[in-house]
């Protein structure tokens, strides 16, 4: 049986009621948060930095830059000719119940040359990972899905880098459908830490190459749930002698997101001020010269506010910063506030069920061709038997 829908009805009612009440609370918080943001903007910069220092290393709010934090910035002029590169990835995770233990990473990429009138260049790269060093960590444990995600994220960045280098000397914007910070590096578990560190270093070297090719690089995060600017304005409102882990946790803006306040503040096409991410992961990026900055951007007349992450060398170069700002807006024009290149990169990367079945079929024939008998686990076989149950209706 699947979900027992009748038994969920009362809970569904409760869910609807809870979300309605929460939306009322959140709506009431927004004017207070905006007022607090304006008050924070009036604070002396050194005073704010001193509060951030007091908050300690565990505080993960937004660190202000030299830009006034409640100002908004209108859309710059789009360059006449601009190459926008998008890359996205998908994967088949290792499955111990399958006929063979392997995993696959599939990367789709596209280059749209705005102003050229030409069809974009598209590319798909698929790679199987089946060697022992790919499949087992240093402690001989099978690799976790989070590690596969990490390698996929690096493969996406590698694709962006290779394409950007092939366009060196031209105006290029590379967009990643993700945070620039390699969050998966924090989630891969202790047993693979050395491998994770090695992968993180590879990723940072790719950023070096993108910087050398003068590419406008951006991580695009749709519907961000981040609360880092709210954490900053909460911190700013605390008296210096009351800043501690307990008071930092007791934010009056619980349930609110940065996106909710910037949806009110940003006119279509405008961006927020630049901030720096205080994530612990950003320390590695800072050391390597790629400290991640971010801004919020209204990409659509309907108020779609997204978070855009950029490395410091884009943030501190007005030409690259404007290219990212204007280029993303240009690329979002026909697709409701989400970049066209990322829509297409996802379409190219995704592995549909029929292609996955064809891959499994190819795998089984290959194994048979080498005298091996492909067998799935009994669990996988019984799932196939029961998973295609037909719904009979009168």
């Amino acid at each position, binding site marked *: 049986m699947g979900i027992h829908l009748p038994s969920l009805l009362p809970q569904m009612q409760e869910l609807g009621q809870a979300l309605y009440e929460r939306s009322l609370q959140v709506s009431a918080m927004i004017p207070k948060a905006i007022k607090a943001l304006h008050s924070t903007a009036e604070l002396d910069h050194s005073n704010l930095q001193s509060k951030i220092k007091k908050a300690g290393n565990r505080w993960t709010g937004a660190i202000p830059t030299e830009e006034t934090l409640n100002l908004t910035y209108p859309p710059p002029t789009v360059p006449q000719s601009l190459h926008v590169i998008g890359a996205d990835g998908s994967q088949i995770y290792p499955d111990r119940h399958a006929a063979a233990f392997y995993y696959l990473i599939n990367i789709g990429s*596209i280059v*749209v040359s705005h102003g050229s*009138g*030409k*069809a*974009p260049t598209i590319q798909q790269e698929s790679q199987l990972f089946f060697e022992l060093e790919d499949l087992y960590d240093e402690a001989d444990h099978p690799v976790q899905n989070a590690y596969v995600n990490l390698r996929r994220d690096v493969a996406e960045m590698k694709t962006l880098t290779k394409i950007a280098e092939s366009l060196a000397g031209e105006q290029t914007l590379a967009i990643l459908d993700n945070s620039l910070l390699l969050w998966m590096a924090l989630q891969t578990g202790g047993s693979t830490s050395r491998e994770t560190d090695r992968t993180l270093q590879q990723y940072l070297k790719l950023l070096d190459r993108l910087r050398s090719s003068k590419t406008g690089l951006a991580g695009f995060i749709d519907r961000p749930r981040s609360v880092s600017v709210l954490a900053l304005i909460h911190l700013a409102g605390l008296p210096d002698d009351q800043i501690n882990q307990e008071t930092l946790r007791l934010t009056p803006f619980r349930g609110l997101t940065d996106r909710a306040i910037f949806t009110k503040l940003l006119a279509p096409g405008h961006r927020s001020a630049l901030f720096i991410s205080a994530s612990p992961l950003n320390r590695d990026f800072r050391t390597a010269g790629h400290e991640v900055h971010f801004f919020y951007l209204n990409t659509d007349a309907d108020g779609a506010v997204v978070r855009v992450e950029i490395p410091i060398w884009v943030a501190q170069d007005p030409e690259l910063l404007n290219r990212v700002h204007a280029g993303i807006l240009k690329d979002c024009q*026909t697709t409701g506030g989400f970049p066209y290149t990322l*829509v297409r990169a996802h*379409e190219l990367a995704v592995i549909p069920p029929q292609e996955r079945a064809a891959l499994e079929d190819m795998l089984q024939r290959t194994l048979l061709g080498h005298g091996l008998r492909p067998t799935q686990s009994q669990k996988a076989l019984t799932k196939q038997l029961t998973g295609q149950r037909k719904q009979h209706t009168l």
Partner: protein
Amino acid sequence: MPESPMMIGRVTRCSTRGFVGAMQISENALPVFGSLCQAEAQGGRSYVVGLVYDISITDDQFARQLAALEEVPQEQIADGQINRHVPVEFSALAVGFHNDGGFHQALPPQPPLTLASVFSMVSKDSVDFTSQLHFLQTILNAPQLPVDELLTTALRLSAQARPEEERERFLLQAGREVAHLLPQDLTRLENILRGLRA
């Protein structure tokens, strides 16, 4: 230089009465309504002759979203027409087959199989096939097709495949055959003959 057949797709659905083919092809290579094509059957021992009666291009939500916009950048139009995996689907009515004995104007003994190659018919074969006109009966008997338009277009394309001095004679002969097949339906006959004269 002799004309060579152009591959226009692969069979995706079929029966002895016709087949449906699909391929991602450019606008220039699209099959034409009323044109003849051939699909490999019986392991290459025969070809089913089909008459293209419908050409369709499938859509999806993304294409619909872009189509609804006032202005779509040229790069995105080119992407949709050239890169995206949107196949052109065409349907053909089986009007004959070809084997060692040449062309036959009858339903084929077996349909082509899935993914069989479909080729456009070169002028020489088209002239050869349409030297007999029994296939007109198959067209007139086809249910739920734009039969009159299909018949008129097929005959005019067959006439164009012939040398200029033979075209009129071919169309006159075809007109007589249609008159023979539609003796009770003068209005319809007149429409078809008018189409052949145009």
